[in-house]
């Protein structure tokens, strides 16, 4: 009886193992053999606009052309993005990654302004940085909270900014770069209000204007767009995080594909294509991260 049950369970497990094994093996050669590069993406800021373009969309299209394969966009969400890439979902648990639930691999890479975070590096392998970032704290214009006066030192400014949270509510989004755990906001005695899982990063400012909270976390690229879109209605209080980097996420077992992308990234940075794309989607970012673009 147990043997029959074991046989019954073993077959699917073996099949899954083979399946995962075959997914792991879907490296550069397999991509070229399949003739398609599957781009996993979540509409976010100007990386993936949802309208068929965006900085990362154009970057991946260029990469697919570079490989000589067809480009295919595969939409996903923050709670499924790792499962769609690796076949196993993951989430932050403290400073580590917690894997849970399996699913089919639906793409070859993730590119939508994904911030390089420690726990994420346990799940995926990131490419060379593609974009600078950070997290700012924003409030509505009429808020009594005042922006900090820059001190010239980022750490001090972070402290000053977090001090503004004391006793005030703040919107955050778990498992993203706006995850309050990443910045230890619990120590600020702020009223941390996590947004529903289905909420997108693009919807953080509207939620703020909707008075879901007094403040909200927002990564810099998104904040730059929000300041232009809602001029005079929101204000940046100050930085919450250190300077961060965004990059393209690969399955750890596709080193050739990742290396091919890194080579392509170096190429487009050298020939100016990359700068042209950044200027197209984030013209103001050069003023905030001059060192990042200068080093490239």
């Amino acid at each position, binding site marked *: 009886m147990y043997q029959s049950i074991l046989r019954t369970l073993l077959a699917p497990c073996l099949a899954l193992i083979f399946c995962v094994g075959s997914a792991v093996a879907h490296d550069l050669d397999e991509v070229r053999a399949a003739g398609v590069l599957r781009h996993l993406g979540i509409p976010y800021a100007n990386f993936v606009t949802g309208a068929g373009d965006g900085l990362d969309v154009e970057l991946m299209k260029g990469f697919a052309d570079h490989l000589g394969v067809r480009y295919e966009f595969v939409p996903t969400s923050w709670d499924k993005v790792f499962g769609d890439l690796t076949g196993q979902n993951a989430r932050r648990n403290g400073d580590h990654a917690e894997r849970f639930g399996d699913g089919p691999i639906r793409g070859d890479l993730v590119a939508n302004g994904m911030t390089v975070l420690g726990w994420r590096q346990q799940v995926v392998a990131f490419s060379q940085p593609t974009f600078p970032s950070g997290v*700012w704290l924003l409030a509505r*214009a009429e808020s009594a909270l*005042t*922006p*900090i*006066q*820059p001190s010239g030192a980022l750490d001090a*400014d972070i402290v000053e900014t977090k001090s503004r949270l004391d006793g005030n509510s703040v919107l955050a989004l778990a498992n993203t770069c706006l995850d309050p755990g990443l910045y230890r906001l619990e120590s600020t005695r702020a009223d941390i209000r996590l947004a529903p899982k289905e909420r997108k990063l693009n919807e953080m400012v509207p939620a703020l204007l909707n008075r879901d909270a007094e403040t909200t976390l927002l990564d810099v690229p998104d*904040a*730059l767009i929000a*300041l*232009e879109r809602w*001029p*005079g209605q929101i*204000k*940046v*209080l*100050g*930085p919450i995080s250190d300077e961060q980097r965004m990059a393209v996420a690969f399955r750890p077992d596709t080193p050739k594909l990742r290396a091919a992308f890194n080579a392509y990234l170096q190429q487009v940075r050298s020939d100016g294509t990359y700068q042209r794309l950044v200027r197209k989607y984030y*013209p*103001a970012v*050069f*003023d*905030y991260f001059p060192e990042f673009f200068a080093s490239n």
Partner: protein
Amino acid sequence: MKRPAQSSGYRAIQIVGVLIGLYLATLVGVAYVGQARFHDALVEQERLSIEKHASTIDFFLATQQAAIDELAQSRTVHTFLANRDLGMSMRYGLRASLSAISRDFRHTLDTKKLSETPIFERVAFVEDDGKVLLEVDANGEVETAHATPRRPAQVGVIEVESRPAGNNLVYSAPVLHKQRTVGYVVAEIAVAGVLQALLAESSPHGSHAAHHNALVGTDDKVIVASSDFDWTDWRSQAGGFGSMLVTEPVANGLFLLVSFTEADVLQGILTSPFFLGALALVSVPLLFGVAHLLRLSNHNLMLLARFQATRQQRMILRKQNERLQREIDKRFESEKKLAHQANYDQLTGLPNRSLALDRLAQAIKWARREGGSVQVLFLDLDRFKQVNDSLGHAAGDELLREAAQRLRGKMRDSDTVSRLGGDEFLVICPETPGSANWEHCARDLLKTLSLPFYIGDHEFFVGASIGVASFPDGGTEPQRLLKNADIAMYAAKDKGRNRYCFYDPSMDAAAVDAMRLENNLRHALARSEMHLQFQPIVDLSSGRAVAAEALLRWSSSELGDIPPDRFIPVAEETGMIHEIGEWVLMEACRQVGAMNVDRDFRVAVNLSTKQFSRPARLLDCVLAALRASGLMPSQLELEITESVLIDDRPEISDFIKQLDRIGVRLSIDDFGTGYSALNYLQRFPFDTLKIDRSFTREINDSEASSSLIRAIIAMAHALGLEVIAEGIEHRSQAGFLLVQHCEFGQGYLYSRPVTAAALNDYLLGNEAKTA
């Protein structure tokens, strides 16, 4: 000393001099006025051009001001100000807003261009206190951290700002935020590039070196010029000859748009005094040239007129010559025709009398010279008259042509065959000595003319009589030869016709007789040598005289009794027949009317065919005779030969019908001797037919004659005619005729022709017999 009078040539020179002077004065005056007007027009044109381009520059500057004003009120500026008001720091957030403004400024610098030249050199965002927040130039954003604060002197207007590198136009647009001015957008227009391009466009003379445009400020400082510019010098030159200075305020009087054209440019367009002087001098030889040309032209016109006149005259002459030539040709043809007509007979084409005599004279000369002879044959057709009378003149003409052709065919080329007139021909045969053979020749001619002639459906035998005279025996002169041949011809006729007769001097007497006959005949009536005799016509069955035929007799006091067949032809030929015929008619009627005869007794009078040529006169004569004699028309019977009717002339037909209408009787005389058709018996109202004596004479001798008489009588009765037989001399003849039912007869059997008195007696005796 007396001063010689001025010649007309000298006065002409004076007048020409005055005229040239007036011309030069007028020329210079007109040129000066034209030049002044032209200068004014150029100034006006330049002013209009400058006004237009001032408007263009105004519009251009206003457009740029509007662009800067728009920048100052742009959303990026307000976003920045709003974010700054929220207390945002440059480090965290505000920098992005300023960066957006920077991008807008840069966009303005990049896109605002005039002919690929950037309009703005730099655009700055200056705070109200003069602090430069942002400054962008062609190279990008300018570091402003240590920039000198600069607050604009004037806002909303363009001002001139002097720079070491040159003047610039500066425009400051206020930035209003929350209803107060919080800063300025300051833009500098690149004077050197943009305005210079505008000035170049505003120049109507293009890039001409002596034409200048400039923008001058209110302080007389030159802001920009199209070329090296010395404003002070220009203004001093403006009043000079030819130069032109036009100004127009720009940007609400902030600048002056100046257009200056140096004199040498306008002198290229306008007429200079030197040019006018030169023009005036040129006019002098020009005038001489014109005068010379006019003289030449006049000369040419005269030559042309002469040439035209000559050509016209030549053309007229040619036409006249052509006409004259035509006239000459015509005249020549006419003369030729006349000469031909003068020398040749139109009907036969033979030489006429004139040419014949000439040829005869030539032949005589030749014969005298050569010792030869000339035979002259005078030829007359024997029965031509009968043909002419019976078939008409057309038939006679045809016969003459045929006869001429036959004669010509029988003679040599050296002989002359000519027609003298009528039916008379003359043949001239020059003969060499010893070769005269006129008899042979005459026989040939007679033979050919004796052959029958065919005219239409008729056959005629004509024949001829030929008289021959020979040079020198028959005469030595043409006229004499001709006359002698004629005499010989008459001799031939006298001898019985259709023969020839050689002239003999004895024939002259016969000719003289004929002439004497004619002369006496002319005087016969006047001398009362004519008288009538009457031969009774009796009813054959009763023997009673029913009529008498009046017969003319001539007893010439000089020639004696002349028979009618001798003098009647002469009378007919000479035309005396009319007078004689009328006398006979009047006298016959008178004499019979004077007799005591029955009212049914008739007198028959013969009419010559020649009398019918005047039918009206004849009718008048008939009426007069009846009226004078008192005879009834039915008592007069007119005897007409057949030949009268052959012509079928309408007037003769009318005449006969009128006679019938008034009751005069008509009889056909000598029936059977003519050639006429019988249909006239039906057409004309004859009462009686008279059988010719030649038939009556042979009644007993010729069966043919008796048969013919029978036929004639039968035919006459069939036509309702009574028949009179002439020439009855024997009772047997009378008996035959009576058997044939011939009603009447006349002849010696009954009575010879007798005088009127004898007739009267005869009638009385006859009446007694028959009573």
